[in-house]
Structures are given as structure tokens and as C-alpha cells.
């Protein structure tokens, strides 16, 4: 038993998600050391909360990327914005409408996902271009609907999204639940095997009877629904929807997938890494912030760190 445990520990670094968590711990320690321990509780809470948003959209993106080269969902930011603005305007601050509002947001995601897939299927265009063109439409729809108004979320909802249980932010609990469900879906269900099979060799998967088109449709829909949920939560958390609220999540959603050790070529993904990558992304930014660096230097270092991690992570495969 003990032997097994040590061998597990020894092999821990072989796990694809190990490096993301190790780097996150390092970034946390660096920030912790700088602030001499003061406010580390707040830092942890903020990290967990903001990482949740990245993790949820990242999981959706991960499923899409798993399906192989060319499969990327670029409509995530626009879907987030559309779901956030529509649901907040619909609720209009009324507590009784919280659940119908959530329903509306998810419905927006469902519609967006189906539309994305319809474009890919009917026009036979690469998903990158399909989701890109569709995102222009969603963005316009959000602008038209919103007209720059900032409607506050219902108080109960805003309390829920900023609250926490036993030191764990409510949002993080939701994020972890989604991650666990996704892990089961990817690693333990037939559907997960199908997605990986499509990513490894679409032709072989089709010949062996995998319903490739259904898998694609469900994956793109799932990504859009997760994006719309994130939009709803983010808008409620930050006290209102904004038209640019999704912008940074395009980069983040792809970055967390790769940093987390999933293969960008598809067919080989892992869920824990998404959380590792999400934590790391926020911690890097807050670490650079606490060192008092300007926006410019912060951006340069963030970019350099992403490239360095990816370069290091891809080298690992050669050794193994």
C-alpha cells in the first residue's frame, strides 16, 4: 500500500496537468512572499473566483479542441456577452426571475451552439471561420439589445455570486462540480471515448460506427452553453453586463487548455489541467500586479510565460 503510494507520488510529475499546478503553487508562493503573508486569504479567494470563470469556458473549449485540428470555438466571448446582457435585462433586478433568467441564458447558449454547428455542417466551413462569423452576429445582437445600459443583477443573485461557504467561494463550488461532471463525461462515459476517438482519427471513428456529426453538434453546443453560463455568472458577479466583458476570455479559454496539458492537436485532453491552467493564468497576472509592474511589462511577461510553458510542456513528450 505504502509502496503504491510512493510510486504514485513518483509518477505524479508524469501527469499532464502536474506542471500547471506546480507553476500555480510557485506563482502563489511568489506573491505570498512579496506581500509577507498579509491578504493571502483574499488573494486565494480572488484567485479561486476568477479562475472559475476561466475554468468553465476552458472546459467547453477543451471538449471542442479534443475533436482535432481546426476545431476551436471563437464565439465564446460573444456568447458570454449575449447571454449576460440578455439575461440581466430580462431579470431587471427582480429576485423572482433569477431562475428563469438562468434558463434564458442557457437557452441563448443552446441556440448559439446549434447555430455554430449548423454553419459548420451546412456551409462546410472550418469551425474557426464559422464561429468567428457567428460571433459577429452575436456581438451585434448584444449591442442592439443592450444599448450601453448597465442593469444591476437581482440582489440575491449578486450576493450568491460574491458569497462563499467555509471559505470556498460559491462560484468555485459550481466550477468544481462542472469540472467533476466533465471529468466523468470525458474519462468514464461512452461519449467521452467518442470525442477522443474523433480527435485521434475522425475517419477511423466514423468507420467504427461513432456518430461523428452528433458528437460534433453536442460538443459545440456544450461549449456555447458553458460560455453562456459563465456570461450569466460573470455579469451577476461584476454587478452588470458589459459589451466587452467576454473579450479576454477568448485567449484565456485556449490558453488554459494548452497550459493544462491537453493536446492542441486533439484526441488527448484532461480536465484537472484546465483548473491548473486557470489558476495559473490569474496568479501570474496578480503576481505581476503585486510587484507593482506597469500594464505594458505585465502584458509582455504574461505572453512570455505562456510561450515558455507551452515550449516546456511540448518538450516533455519527447522525454516520455
Amino acid at each position, binding site marked *: 500500500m505504502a509502496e503504491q503510494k510512493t510510486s504514485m507520488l513518483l509518477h505524479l510529475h508524469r501527469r499532464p496537468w502536474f506542471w500547471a499546478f506546480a507553476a500555480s503553487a510557485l506563482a502563489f508562493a511568489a506573491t505570498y512572499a512579496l506581500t509577507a503573508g498579509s491578504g493571502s486569504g483574499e488573494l486565494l479567494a480572488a484567485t479561486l473566483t476568477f479562475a472559475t470563470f476561466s475554468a468553465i469556458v476552458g472546459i467547453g473549449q477543451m471538449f471542442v479542441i479534443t475533436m482535432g485540428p481546426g476545431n476551436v470555438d471563437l464565439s465564446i466571448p460573444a456568447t458570454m456577452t449575449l447571454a449576460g446582457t440578455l439575461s440581466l435585462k430580462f431579470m431587471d433586478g427582480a429576485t423572482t426571475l433569477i431562475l428563469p433568467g438562468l434558463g434564458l441564458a442557457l437557452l441563448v447558449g443552446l441556440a448559439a451552439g446549434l447555430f455554430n454547428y449548423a454553419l459548420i455542417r451546412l456551409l462546410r466551413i472550418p469551425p474557426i471561420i464559422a464561429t468567428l462569423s457567428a460571433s459577429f452576429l452575436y456581438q451585434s445582437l448584444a*449591442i442592439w439589445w443592450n444599448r450601453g445600459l448597465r442593469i444591476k443583477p437581482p440582489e440575491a443573485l449578486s450576493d450568491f455570486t460574491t458569497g462563499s461557504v467555509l471559505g470556498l467561494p460559491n462560484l468555485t463550488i459550481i466550477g468544481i462540480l462542472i469540472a467533476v461532471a466533465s471529468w466523468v463525461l470525458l474519462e468514464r462515459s461512452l461519449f467521452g471515448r467518442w470525442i477522443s476517438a474523433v480527435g485521434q482519427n475522425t475517419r477511423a471513428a466514423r468507420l467504427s460506427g461513432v456518430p461523428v456529426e452528433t458528437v460534433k453538434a453536442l460538443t459545440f453546443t456544450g461549449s456555447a452553453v458553458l460560455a453562456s453560463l459563465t456570461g450569466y455568472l460573470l455579469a451577476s458577479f461584476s454587478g452588470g453586463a458589459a459589451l466587452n466583458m467576454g473579450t479576454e476570455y477568448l485567449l484565456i479559454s485556449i*490558453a488554459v487548455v494548452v497550459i493544462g496539458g491537453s493536446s492542441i492537436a486533439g484526441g488527448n485532453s484532461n480536465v484537472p489541467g484546465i483548473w491548473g491552467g486557470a489558476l495559473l493564468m490569474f496568479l501570474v497576472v496578480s503576481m505581476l500586479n503585486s510587484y507593482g509592474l506597469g500594464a505594458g511589462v505585465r502584458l*509582455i511577461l504574461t505572453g512570455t510565460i505562456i510561450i515558455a510553458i507551452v515550449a516546456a510542456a511540448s518538450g516533455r513528450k519527447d522525454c516520455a
Partner: protein
Amino acid sequence: MSGRYRILLPILSLAVLLAAVFYLQPRAMSYFGLNLLFNLAVPIALATIAQMMIIMVNDIDLSIGTFVSFVACVTATFLNETPLLGAGILLLSIMVYAAMGALIHIRQLPAIVVTLGMSFVWAGLAVLLLPSPGGASPGWIRTLMTVKPPFVPMAVVACILIAAVTHLLIMRSATGTLLRAVGGNTQAVLRAGWSVTKLKAGAYALAGLFGVLAGMCLVGLTTSADANIALRYTLLSIAGVILGGGEFVGGRISPVGAVIGALTLSLAGSFLSFMRLSPDWQIGAQGAILILVLAVRLVFARNGNRWKEAKNG
């Protein structure tokens, strides 16, 4: 899709859009009007060519928008005040692009992520250079961009020139064929004894070069710069390449098509404002036009196949 057919649809979509613009606004059918319509298309066309170089080798560049912004900031500051230093920085940035291409190939990294990371770096550098909008265009670039050749406006001349030069470079020269072959069949190029690393670095360097030209042109037109000046170029350039008949894999691209694609996209913007469409819907309508063109392309491709099948019996 045959090469000849590939260029037909972009030309057709541009012609239809141009006719619609002239119908809505007959006064645009003049030297001055055309210049106004296509002025801002020149830097977009250059950025689209840059993107095309990357798509040619089966990669995608998500940093071109921030790179053009960075170049614009350098042009409006260093190149204006200390031209030698400015030119040095721009040369260095092209070398960074080449290094990026080499790194992506040697370590087999996903281009999407590396260019995504680089987009942070370029954005950071741009913010350091120009924290707030400002700077000034070097006189000679301004003169070049506002020159008034007889009969045909500068914007049109520039676009034809860009298309001709890149067509010769990519479609007619030996180097161009080799570069396209990297996208078509990397293994074959490798077995034939070429260094794919060098070729990829070359393709990326070309992308960097055209990115630099795009940034300089942009400053020549706007006369000042800011760190976010060209962010939307990333998406516009990808859309332009695809509109122009390019494909994401296989080195199947068309430089002339890419320039026409860029013109179509920037014309779409003018068309929508002539339509008195609410600004809310401008972005959405551009997306709709993109979808429409791709739908037409599908119909064309299907008919083409049917015709080919009929011919072959």
C-alpha cells in the same frame, strides 16, 4: 477547386458589392470617392497578405492585429524622431517573427498558442511605447500615402501593386512554390532535402515584413497611433484570406484573392454605412456577408464538382 475558379468568386463578390455601393451612392464613382472607399483597405490588405503567409504553412497568426498596432506605435514615435533606430527596431521585429516560425517548427508547438502569447508581448510593448494615443507620422510616409497619381487613385494603385508583387513572389517564384509546398506536404519537402525550419522561418519573416508595411501605411493614413489601433485586423485578416479563396490547410492560397478579400471586407463597412444601417448592426452585418459569401462558394464548388463528374463520364 481549380486555381482558375478559385479567383472567380472573390472577384464576383467584390464586383457585386461595388455595384451595390455605386447604386446607393453614385457620387462614390469618382476619383475622390474611390480613394475614400479604399483608403483604409491598403493596410488591411497588407495585414491580410501577412496572415496569408502564415496560413500558407498551415499555421494561423492570432497576433497580427497587436503586431500591426505595435509597428504603428514604433512608426509614430521612433521612426519619426530617430529614423535609424526606428528602422532597426522594425527589422528586429521581423527577425522575432522569423524566430517564432523556427521555434514553432523545431519544438512542434501549436501556432495558435504561440501567436496568442506573442499578441500579449506586442500589446505590452505597444502600451510601453504609447500609453496614450499620440505620436506623428514621418513626413515621407504621409507623402507616399497621400500622393495623387493621375486617373487612378492611390489606394487602388497600391492594392494592385501589392497583389502583383505578392503574386509574383508566392505563385511564380521558386521560393514561393517551395513555401506553398511546406503547407501542402511537409514530409515531401523534408525528404527532398530542404530545411523546413528555414522555410517556416522564411514564411514567418515574410508575414512580419508585410505586418510592418501594414503598420507603416496605417500611420501614414491616420497620422498618429495608439496601442489598440489595429486590434480588429486579426479577425479581418483571417476572414480576408478565406474570402479570397484560401484554405486553412494544404498551402492552397491566393495572394490576389487575399487582396480582393480585404477590399471586399473594407467595402462591406462602407456599404453598410451607405445603407444607413444602425451602427449596432455593422459588425453583425459583416459577419452575415462573410457567411453569405461562404454559402455562395459552397454552391459554386458543388456545381463545379457536378460539372467535372459529368465531363469525366
